[in-house]
């Protein structure tokens, strides 16, 4: 009986760190509600090495996709698609859009490499933000909310689907396209224009 009690107490003492972790998580999480992607607490850094939060710019629309810097196959097409989508908007509407390109490759893509990529592709930072998170779990959380699937190969390549998502001013998904092409998806473009016209 004594031995059992001692074991119980010992168990309680040795498990204290686990309980501290419980409380830490409880205090760091904020109360959020709804479908808005703006409530995502995933830490992101942009090409200017500044912390970035979805929705912070207060733009009328956000066009968001995921890619990675070393990708020579589909990613140049993804970048070109985003550029052409923005370019096809009337000039007066472009200022009301933020294009967010999120890296699938934290740890490899950095603010510096993203800045270089933005320069090569002539992406104006007032419109285009190339961002990367701090780890794979956070990246996967963002991907899961967008419907992006990806898998990392042993050789460093990342296999992923292509998805362009339009968020409205409240961070709700308004339109999405899975078509990989340098040309904009006309339905998504129309949805974006309708949103901006209102």
């Amino acid at each position, binding site marked *: 009986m004594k031995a059992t009690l001692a074991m119980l107490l010992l168990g309680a003492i040795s498990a204290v760190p686990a309980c501290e972790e419980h409380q830490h998580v409880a205090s760091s999480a904020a109360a959020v509600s709804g479908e808005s992607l703006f*409530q995502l607490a995933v830490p992101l850094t942009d090409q200017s090495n500044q912390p970035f939060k979805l929705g912070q710019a207060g733009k009328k629309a956000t066009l968001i996709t995921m890619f990675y810097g070393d990708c020579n*196959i589909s990613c140049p097409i993804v970048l070109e698609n985003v550029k052409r989508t923005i370019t096809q908007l009337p000039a007066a509407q472009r200022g009301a859009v933020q294009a967010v390109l999120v890296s699938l490759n934290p740890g490899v893509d950095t603010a510096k490499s993203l800045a270089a990529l933005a320069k090569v592709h002539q992406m104006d930072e007032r419109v285009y933000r190339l961002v990367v998170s701090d780890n794979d779990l956070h990246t996967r959380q963002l991907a*899961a909310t967008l419907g992006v699937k990806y*898998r990392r190969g042993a050789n460093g390549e990342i296999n992923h689907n292509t998805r362009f998502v339009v968020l409205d001013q409240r961070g709700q998904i308004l339109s999405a396209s899975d078509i990989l092409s340098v040309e904009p998806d006309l339905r998504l473009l129309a949805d974006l224009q309708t949103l901006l016209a209102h």
Partner: protein
Amino acid sequence: MKTATACFAFVLGCLHAADYVPIAGGTLRTALPLDGETVPVAAFQMRSKPVTNAEFLLFVLANSEWQRRNAPTLYATNAYLSQWRSATDFAPLPPNAPVTNVSWFAASAYCASEGAALPSWTQWEFAAAADAVRTDARHDPAWRAQILGWYEKPSVESLPDVGLHPANIYGVHDLHQLIWEWVDDFNGLFVTVDSRAQGEQKVLETCGAASLSLGDKENYAVLMRIALLAALNGQDSVGSLGFRCVKPAQ
């Protein structure tokens, strides 16, 4: 009063601290090859049993943002914990039955609260390849038949308790024959080629012929798990889908 409740939860949580067992790791012949038929799996620790209703209740009591009325739809659909009587009462379900109807986001947050994470697909597959005496029993037709037998049983209204099936060689229970389980990279399954081949990929994802790109085609039990997980969104909750967590090796 608040302190008293916290202390109560604290003591319960500590006395029932989850049991993690070491898994040595090694080379896995995976059912989901990407580049090469095998993948290296580093040593890790795995929860010996899936997370139960009682354990998940402690989590939602300590983290009220994960109670079903508070969890945002971005992270959990209306089905989240819908079989519980209330946001903080799992009745009529038994305390030691595995918790199900939890979204990937909720499962992931639970594991983080234990200083752990959801297993990757290959970690789960590695642990689940074992039986009571072998680290890889998958080539044994009798073992496969036994697991497949689970799928033939009519589903029961209430899931049995965790830990009733014998442990495998690592001391892990219930990897088969009880529930489906979330993995960390559920949204990475089936993506076997780069997005140039997207048209073909889409066909494979929807027509069920995706096993063409899978290794180990005879292992239906594992393929069914992959198919289920690949069809899910992170917000989804399913009545037969629960989870367990893993930690780095000590």
